[in-house]
Structure formats: structure tokens, C-alpha cells
């Protein structure tokens, strides 16, 4: 990479500015406190052809560039320091080194400079990325650079992108009399690209009074056709949001579907089990960071079984120590577990402090992929998949394992199950542990999208109960359907009436639905249910 930059820089220097002479000035401008000087220095440096330019600019972007009071510039690499101008290591680090400061304006310029340098990189992939960056940036000053790159580019994909970038850049320039045709073509080119970025540029053109009428009209037409497209995609996008929100609700509710739906324990400490799951995630991340830093990106995967075991174990303890004295008195379980939730919250507050803790999101869970006109954020997608896996796994456990069979037997007829030789206390403890473990899994997932603080559980408990009850107590399919219905409903309503009203509307709809169907969406039927 570094050598590539060097080559590019040399090449640039050779072609554009033979006999570059201002490099000392350019470098010293980087250490300036004035943004204008820095911007000038960056653009000069980009075209200077200096062998160090690429390295220095990268160091600047990563905030590894330091300025000494005497105007010297140094790049810090771990414990050692390198002179920025020469690339030679320095034996003694000068006193008073300060990092060179960036702001968003400088960052933008820096990205442009780096992209313009990368346009001539040997790898097509690098050039394509650079073209992407310049397209997004569409800085009028870049037209010559783009023209030059186009004149030498062979790769078809990169060429297309460069043309689009040029079109965007041309439209970013103020309109002039003689550029009409060029601009019209640019508008057409961008209209074909589509997407929010292009829409942004075209909308600017469409509103501009300086623009020639036919260019303006073409831009207006392009914008309205794009809006139509975007609107169609936004339906799909909303559907994804709904699914994703529903999957969070589903994860939060599955554990409750076991403890509450199957066992009849109104477990108000369910949210706290989620909270503990999230804290376990954090602890696992910290432990891995300290012990095996190489595994850091997959710490979250390690956290999944750990959280399940820790929360499940706590669940078993809670069942043995508290819940088992309260069977047949569901309301008492509400009071006792409410007390328990207060204790757990305060305990976490005492141990970890009351503030949020920072659970890292690994790089492979950050960002999004574009699918047509919509963005699928990776962490949400991962949660969606995770929720499906958890639900599927739970179904398997309930249907295919002895524990599942015993659990169903115990909940259907405790006495008969006991007579058949099932150790009901053990089944109770394991079932409650399973529910708590599932809450722990939900905690791992939630740590990727929400605050992790002692209050985490409180924000999910009401929604979780709502989901279980809405779906029909004791029916996992009902829980799935309810979570998705509530998630979708909320997200469909939200753009129209706002987040708060959407939430209120959903609550009212649930209330009314329960009036019509007093046992939820999927009631457990049969003669023995009532009385």
C-alpha cells in the first residue's frame, strides 16, 4: 500500500508538476492552526509528488501526525517517531509535540486529496473506491483530475464510475452559459445512477435559478422520477425496519414466553436478566481484549454461550431460591420478582457504576449493505438472523429433547407428570433457567443497538409482556406473530404519525384487540383451559 502510494505520488509529480518545489511550504502548512492554511497544504501536497505525501496524509487522517513547536512534523508509530518529511526514524522525540488537529472541513478535503491520489493506483479496486469517494465529494476543483484519470483509465467499471463522478462534479460547478449541453448530459448520467446522493445533486440543480431552463427541467423530471423510485423502495425499507424491530421484540419476549407463558411465573425480573446478559457481553469483551486481543472481533460470539450459561444459571438459582415457594400463586411471583429486579438493578449499579458502559460493535457488524434502494444495516440484520436461530433452537429444544417433552408434560398436568416419574422440581428449575438464559441471549443482541446500563431491563419489560400476551400465553408461534405484528405496525405508523403517536396507537390497538380476542392471537384451546 505504502509503496503503491509512493509510486502514485511519484507518477503524479512527474506528470502534473514537474520539478515540484513547494514541498517544504506544503508540509509546514499542515502544522498550522488555521484551517485555510491546512487546506491549502493538503491540496498542494496531494499534487506535489513528494514521496512522503501519501504517508503523511494518511497519518494526518489517522491522527498520528504531530507538530513540534519549531515547525517539525513527526509521525508517531507506536512508541517510535518518524520525521514526516524524510521518513527517517528520529532518536529523540522533541518536546511539546502536539497532534495536528482535524475538523470536518479538513477531513473532507483530506479524503478528496487521498482519493485523487488513489485514482492512479495500479489496482482497479483501489481506483474504483477512489472514484466512489470523488463521486460522493463532487468537488468542482477535481474536474481536471477526473479528466486526466479518464484519459488513462482502461477498466470499464472504473471508467463508468469516473464518468458519473465527473457528471456529479460538473453539476456541482456553478452554471455557465456555454456549458449547457455538458450539464444536460451530466443530468442524464446522474439520473441513470439514482440513489440519494444523485438525488441530492440533482435537487440542487433543479432549484437553481442560474441554471438554463432545459437543464433545470431535466433535473426536475429526474428528481421526481427518482422520488417515485425512492418511495417504492422506502416501503421495502420500512418493512425491513419493522422486521428488525419485531425481531428485537421477539428476542426480548421468547424468554418470557417460557417463564411466563409456559410456567405461569410473572417474572418482572426478566428485563434484568437481559441487562445481565448485556453486562456479560461487556465483560467477555474486556476479558478477551486483555487476554487474547486477536479474538476481539469475535468476542461477541463468545459472549453468546457465556451469557446463556450465566443467566441460565442465575435463573436456576432464582427458581430454587424463590420461585418454587410461589407456584400456584402467580401474583405473588409478580411481587417477589419485582423486588428481585430492584435488587439486581441496584447491585449492578453498585458493582459497575450507574453510567452506561461501552459494548463494542465489531467491524463486521457495523455499517450497512445497499440492496437496491434500501440500506440493510448489518447489526440489525444480524439480530434478525439471531432471533430466528434462537426461536428455531427453542422450538427444537421443546419438541425434540427430553427436557422439552417433560416441560410440556409438567405444564399440562403436573400431578400426572409427577406420577409418571418426571422430577417436576428439576424440570421447573431447568425451564426457568432456560427462560432466563434466553433473556441473556436477548441481552447480548440488545447490547449491539442500545444503551447498556442498569436501567436496560426496564425499557423492555413492558413490551415483552405485551408481546407474550398479545400472541397468546403459552404459544411460541403466537409470540412470533405478535412480535412481528407489533414491530411492523409500529414502523408502518411511525413515518405517518411520529414515533410517540405510533407507540400509543399500537398500545391502544393491542388493548382493543384483547377485548375482541380475550386470549390473544393464538389462544390455547380446549376444554381444560377455563375454570
Amino acid at each position, binding site marked *: 500500500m505504502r509503496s503503491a502510494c509512493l509510486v502514485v505520488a511519484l507518477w503524479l509529480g512527474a506528470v502534473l508538476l514537474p520539478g515540484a518545489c513547494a514541498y517544504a511550504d506544503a508540509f509546514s502548512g499542515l502544522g498550522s492552526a488555521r484551517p485555510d492554511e491546512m487546506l491549502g497544504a493538503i491540496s498542494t501536497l496531494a499534487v506535489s509528488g513528494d514521496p512522503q505525501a501519501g504517508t503523511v496524509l494518511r497519518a494526518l487522517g489517522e491522527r498520528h501526525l504531530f507538530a513540534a513547536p519549531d515547525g517539525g512534523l513527526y509521525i508517531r508509530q507506536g512508541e517510535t517517531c518518524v520525521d514526516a518529511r524524510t521518513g527517517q526514524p528520529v532518536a529523540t522525540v522533541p518536546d511539546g509535540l502536539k497532534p495536528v488537529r482535524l475538523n470536518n472541513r479538513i477531513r473532507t478535503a483530506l479524503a478528496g486529496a487521498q482519493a485523487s491520489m488513489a485514482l492512479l493506483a495500479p489496482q482497479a479496486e483501489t481506483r474504483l473506491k477512489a472514484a466512489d469517494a470523488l463521486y460522493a465529494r463532487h468537488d468542482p476543483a477535481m474536474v481536471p483530475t477526473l479528466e486526466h484519470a479518464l484519459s488513462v483509465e482502461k477498466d470499464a467499471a472504473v471508467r463508468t464510475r469516473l464518468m458519473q463522478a465527473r457528471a456529479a462534479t460538473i453539476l456541482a460547478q456553478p452554471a455557465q452559459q456555454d456549458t449547457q449541453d455538458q450539464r444536460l448530459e451530466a443530468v442524464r448520467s446522474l439520473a441513470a445512477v439514482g440513489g440519494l446522493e444523485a438525488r441530492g445533486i440533482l435537487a440542487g440543480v433543479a432549484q437553481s435559478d442560474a441554471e438554463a431552463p432545459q437543464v433545470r427541467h431535466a433535473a426536475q423530471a429526474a428528481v421526481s422520477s427518482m422520488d417515485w423510485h425512492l418511495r417504492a423502495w422506502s416501503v421495502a425499507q420500512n418493512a425491513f425496519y419493522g422486521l428488525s424491530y419485531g425481531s428485537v421484540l421477539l428476542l426480548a419476549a421468547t424468554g418470557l414466553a417460557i417463564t*411466563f407463558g409456559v*410456567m*405461569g*411465573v*410473572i417474572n*418482572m425480573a426478566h428485563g434484568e436478566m437481559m441487562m445481565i446478559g448485556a453486562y456479560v457481553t461487556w465483560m467477555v469483551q474486556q476479558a478477551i481484549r486483555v487476554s487474547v486481543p486477536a479474538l476481539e472481533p469475535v468476542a461477541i460470539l463468545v459472549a453468546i454461550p457465556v451469557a446463556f450459561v450465566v443467566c441460565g444459571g442465575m435463573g436456576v438459582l432464582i427458581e430454587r431460591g*424463590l420461585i418454587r*415457594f*410461589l*407456584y*400456584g*400463586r*402467580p*401474583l*405473588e*411471583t*409478580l*411481587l*417477589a420478582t*419485582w*423486588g*428481585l*429486579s*430492584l*435488587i439486581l*438493578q*441496584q*447491585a449492578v449499579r*453498585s458493582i459497575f457504576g450507574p453510567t452506561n458502559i461501552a459494548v463494542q460493535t465489531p467491524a463486521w457488524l457495523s455499517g450497512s449493505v445497499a440492496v437496491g434502494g434500501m440500506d440493510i444495516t448489518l447489526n440489525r440484520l444480524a439480530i434478525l438472523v439471531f432471533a430466528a436461530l434462537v426461536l428455531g433452537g427453542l422450538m427444537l429444544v421443546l419438541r425434540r429433547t427430553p427436557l422439552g417433552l417433560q416441560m410440556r408434560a409438567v*405444564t399440562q*398436568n*403436573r*400431578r400426572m407428570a409427577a406420577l409418571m416419574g418426571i422430577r417436576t422440581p428439576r424440570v421447573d428449575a431447568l425451564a426457568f433457567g432456560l427462560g432466563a438464559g434466553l433473556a441473556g441471549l436477548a441481552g447480548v443482541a440488545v447490547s449491539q443497538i442500545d444503551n447498556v446500563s442498569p436501567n436496560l431491563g*426496564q425499557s423492555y419489560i*413492558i413490551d415483552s*409482556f*405485551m408481546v407474550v*400476551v398479545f400472541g397468546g*400465553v*403459552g404459544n411460541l408461534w403466537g409470540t412470533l406473530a405478535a412480535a412481528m405484528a407489533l414491530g411492523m405496525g409500529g414502523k408502518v405508523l411511525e413515518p405517518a404519525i411520529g414515533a*410517540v*403517536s405510533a*407507540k*400509543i396507537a399500537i*398500545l*391502544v390497538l*393491542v*388493548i*382493543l384487540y*384483547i*377485548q*375482541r380476542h*380475550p*386470549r*390473544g392471537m393464538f389462544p390455547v384451546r380446549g376444554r*381444560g*383451559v*377455563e*375454570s
Partner: protein
Amino acid sequence: MNPFSVHGPRNLRGVIWMAVAVVVVAGGLAMASLLPEGSPFHASAFVVSLAGKYLAYAMLALSVDLVWGFAGILTLGHAAFFALGGYAMGMYLMREIGARGVYGNASLPDFMIFLSWKSLPWYWWGSEHFAWAALLVVAVPGLLAGVFGWLAFRSRVSGVYLSIITQALTYALMLAFFQNGLGFGGNNGLTDFKDILGADLHAPLTRAVLLVVTGVLLAASLLAARFVVASRFGHLLVAVRDAENRTRFLGYRPDQVKLLVWVFSAMVAGLGGALYVTQVGIINPGEFAPANSIESVIWVAVGGRGTLCGAVLGAILVNLGKTLFTAWLPEFWLYGLGFLFIGTTLFLPQGIMGLLRHVRKPPAEEVTPEVSDTQGGEA
């Protein structure tokens, strides 16, 4: 559900005494607060306002006990009725401020000016009249309870389903009242009250009178509740609680029975909320928080469900404990509260009243609760 963990209407002997005690204590404290500050019997404004708050909470607990203890409806949303009563009174108190608000506008409360509203919304009409406010205090919670209960009981929503939709109700109301656009002051709610019926709310005499009024109304509610549960209707209530289907085959309509007590209970809660606001000086959407409703259920459980006295006792004791522990052990009081709830359910299933009865009468005829076959479902 095991019927022996709760009581029929036989355990109401103490209610009259409790009503008398409430009035005596409230009256005594009120008089003590009017004594000069140097007097050894002087009760500070702090104590008076605390006492007022506890008694208002006791009304909420009483209303919860009526529906939970006697009709078997586990409500997780009763604080909504309490808060609505509070808001109704708060609207009146807000209008009493008149031109003394920070913007000096005589007809619009400050928060409306801040939202650039030009005139009062229709639901604030008449709120400057105390009588209208007093009517709203019971009518609004009663009406909401009536509609909600009519829908729910008619379609036989019961058990946890009912509990959860009561919770959804209060949660939805909380979100709604948080919205500034609703016209009730948003998150800040209604506060900075000055007068009630022309009397300065901060004057010792006003406080003393308010405390006495709260005590008397609590006592009256206690007696009214006792009248209800001791009547034949009260027996029917217990019958509906324990075997709803059976009452149907006797020709009763449990939905009507529940609706009646539900609406009555909501009105008592609303009254409590109104008294609360006058003495605490603020009402905001936080009062709708589901946690508040759950806490009020816990007061009843601690005091002893289905005893009326227990509700009052539980509300006062738990809140007194909260006041003391948040001051003495600010970092640890939640542990105490948590263990109190766990301990109560494990060791005092009949609450303090059960303990008292236990002490008076040795547990000769105690019946051990049998584990029912089907857990859950029925509340």
C-alpha cells in the same frame, strides 16, 4: 388461585377503627402544625406534607385493594386513575395562578404560552371553577374506567390478560401525556401552584386544612368501601373473584359486578390523586409510569390483600420506609425495598394484617395452601 391466601368480607372489623384513627392522626398532626415552632409538639410543614402524601397514596392503595382484594382483578394500571384525578385538580390549580405566572398572562397557563398557543383548548374550559374540577376529579377516572371496564369485562378478558392491558392503558396514557402537544404541560406536567379556593397553598393553615380534608376523605372512602364489601354485593364480589363461572349459572352477571366496583375504585383513586396534587404541588406524566401502579399493588400486598385496613397500613408503612431509607441510606435503600417485597411474599403471604391476626389468634385452623394443578392463567 388459592382462596385461603385472601379473605372474605369477614375481616372487616378493624375498618371503622382505622377510619377513626386516620381522622384522629390527620387532625392531630394538623393541629400540631399550627402550634408555634418552639413547641415540643410542633409538627413541621415537612411532616404535614408527608402525611398528606401518605394518606393520598393510601386512597390509591384502598382502591387497588377493592378491585384486587375483593374482585380478583389484578390491576397494573391503577395509578392512571390516580394521575387523571391529579391532572383534573392540577388544571384548576393551574388556572388559580392567574396572572402570577412568569409571563403574566391571566388566561393561559405558562406552558401554553411557551408553546405559542393563543387560546385555551376546549378541554380546559371551565377548569377555573373548583366545582367543575371536583367533578372531573371523579368523573374522568370513572368514565375511563367505565369504558375500559365495559369493554374488557363484557368480553371476559381476565387474569394476566386483563393485568397486561391495564398496564398498556397506563403506559399509553403516560406516553400521551409526555407529549407537549396534548396540552397538559408535557414532561414537566402542572406545577408551581399558588392558591386553592383563594387560600395560599403554602400557608400552614391551608396545609393543615388540606391534611384534615385528606384524612376525612380517606376515612369516608374506607367506610364507603367497607359498606360495599360488607353488603350482599360484597359477598357477590368475593364469589365472582373465586368462582366467576358459578355466579353466572346462578343468574348473576359478573361483568356488571366487576364494572361497578371497578368504576367506584377508579373514582376513589382519582380523589386520592386530586388530594395528592394539592399537597405535593406537582403532577406530571411520571405518575402514569407502570412502576407506580405495580408499587401500589405492592403496598396492598404488604398490608394484606382483601382487608381494606391492610391497604391503608401498607401504603403508609412502605412510603414511610421509602422516605426514611432514601434519606438514611441513599445508596442502599433499593436493596431494602427489594428484600421487603421478597420477604413479604415468602413469609407474610397475608401481609401485615395476616401477621396481626396470627399474633392474636394462634394458627390452629391455618390451612396449608394446596398447589393447584394448572398454574398460571387465572389470576
